[in-house]
């Protein structure tokens, strides 16, 4: 029984509704009714109204309250009258949507949130660092094998992509500079350029950006999922510290993996430059490596690696900050994951700039 037909008939100053009122037929009638609005309708006759669903009831309520107030509706069949009584929308108030805060309120809210954010991040950082170092000496409340597992996720599984991108980066930088340097017969300096830029800037920063996108997003998604599904609450009620149980293994693992990945990145970046040097600049490999080793100092390597450790910490802290902040189901997980990746890449780049200023 598919009910599809309904008509309005205007006769002898009376409006007759004929057929079935359903969510399918109501829209047409609604348009027609507006035409009769100005005519002298004296009554609405429901004698030939066979059936009405709840959309129909709402339509009739709208007719009698907004379109034809003070006009009798007559001859409703028992069934229709029952529906009208049962599902009446006449004394239901439709609540207004909540108001959006005004300009000053928004500014104030923003300032308050900023303050909370800063304190939260400080607390989080101190707690992570506390449990990472202090926790080494207490075996209770630790998840066995968690660090090793995280090292596989964060480190081993990222070797391929970090290596590939580094070698490509080395090739590109070398190729771009080789053409210029060759004009002055200074092709050998490609080795210096690649060595310095890979060790001090490109290696650490690019690895950090890859890890922020790859592992940072995974951290944020994992922690926020645990938050919205009440897993973190469950951990707390089992007298386990969520930071220690969930975040610390990631923190320690990334602290170990990041410098190693950066070393791989540096070596393969230099290899990329070396390939260009051998093929495009006709350098010998002895002279290329001598040049590379002569320009690099231990200090450069230490700066590059220590930077990478800071980047690693920033990635974990930002990911867990957003993760713990998540609310509102799957939607919330998606939101904080995005925010976390954007924020950590931004933070890595800004931090890198600061480091460059400090160690000029």
């Amino acid at each position, binding site marked *: 029984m598919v009910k599809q037909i309904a008509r309005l008939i205007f006769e002898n100053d009376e409006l007759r509704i004929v057929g079935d009122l359903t969510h399918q037929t109501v829209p047409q009638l609604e348009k027609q009714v507006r035409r009769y609005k100005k005519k002298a309708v004296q009554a609405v006759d429901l004698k030939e109204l066979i059936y009405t669903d709840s959309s129909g009831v709402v339509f009739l309520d709208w007719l009698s309250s907004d379109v034809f107030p003070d006009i009798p509706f007559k001859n409703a069949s028992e069934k229709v009258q029952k529906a009208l009584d049962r599902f009446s929308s006449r004394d239901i108030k439709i609540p207004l949507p909540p108001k959006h805060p005004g300009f000053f309120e928004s500014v104030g809210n923003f300032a308050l949130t900023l303050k909370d954010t800063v304190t939260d991040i400080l607390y989080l950082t101190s707690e992570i660092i506390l449990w990472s170092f202090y926790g080494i000496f207490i075996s209770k409340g630790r998840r066995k094998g968690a660090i090793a597992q995280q090292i596989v996720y964060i480190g081993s599984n990222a070797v391929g992509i970090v290596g590939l991108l580094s070698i490509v980066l080395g090739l590109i930088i070398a190729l771009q500079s080789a053409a210029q340097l060759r004009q002055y017969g200074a092709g050998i300096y490609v080795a210096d350029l690649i060595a310095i830029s890979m060790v001090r800037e490109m290696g650490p920063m690019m690895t950090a950006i890859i890890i922020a996108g790859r592992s940072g997003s995974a951290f944020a998604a994992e922690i926020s999922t645990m938050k919205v599904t009440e897993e973190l609450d469950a951990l707390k009620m089992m007298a386990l510290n969520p930071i220690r149980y969930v975040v610390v293994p990631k923190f320690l693992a990334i602290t170990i993996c990041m410098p190693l990945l950066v070393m791989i990145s540096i070596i393969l970046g230099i290899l990329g430059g070396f390939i260009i040097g051998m093929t495009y600049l006709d350098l010998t490999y002895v002279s290329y490596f001598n040049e590379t080793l002569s320009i690099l100092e231990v200090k450069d390597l230490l700066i590059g690696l220590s930077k990478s450790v800071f980047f690693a910490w920033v990635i974990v802290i930002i990911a867990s900050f957003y993760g713990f902040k998540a609310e*509102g189901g799957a939607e919330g997980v998606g939101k904080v994951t995005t925010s976390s990746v954007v924020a950590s890449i931004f933070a890595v780049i800004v931090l890198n700039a600061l480091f460059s200023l400090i160690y000029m």
Partner: protein
Amino acid sequence: MSKPLINIKDITVRFGEKTVLDTINLDIFPNEITVILGESGCGKTTLLKTITGLIKPASGSIHIFGEPFDGADESKHDRMLRRMGVLFQNGALLNSVSVRDNVAIPLEQHSRMDPDLIARNVAVKLKWVGLSEAEYLLPSELSGGMRKRAALARAIILDPEILFCDEPSAGLDPVTSASLDQLILTIKEQFNMTILVVSHELASIHRIADKVIYLDKRKILYNGPLAAVRTCGIETVENFFRTGSF
């Protein structure tokens, strides 16, 4: 006897190696409330999802409104779907929009009604389920029982001819549960609805059921009127009704 509205023939459902439903035959008749019961994990949700086409059975056929449901072409299938409403076991509200918008979606998408009328209809449905205060809350801001009720409002917004409910009263207090049962009875009577409910609540079953189906070990153990269930002679089924009552 009238013709069955839903006809299920030799349905078998497997997940991997595991057979969950084994050659099930079932007829659902118009204008009746059929309650499916059985132990947790026996396949009630699976049966409901198979009937609604969400799970593909390994074999067997399903006819709804006298027409093959699984084989129908897309537009026909869509038209049939619009005549059915489903309340999922965990509500399945869209997380990103408010309760109000969740309930309004079917009307907004399938009817060209004026937004004002849609708003009224949504308000009526939310009042029925007792959620007038919650119109603008997000699903994540609701309690478990409130989510259920919002999902029920969404399932009945188009006054479907067939309503499927997976445990509508689970997690609700007896008073709210009773009022929902009353609502189900009212809409059934008013709109000639056919309703298929999964439920464990004996009180609720006694209030609403016309027919009872008892699932056990991949098979239908009992399928008959509620009135006869206590004396059906099947130990497990009688036991279920005896254990739960006091």
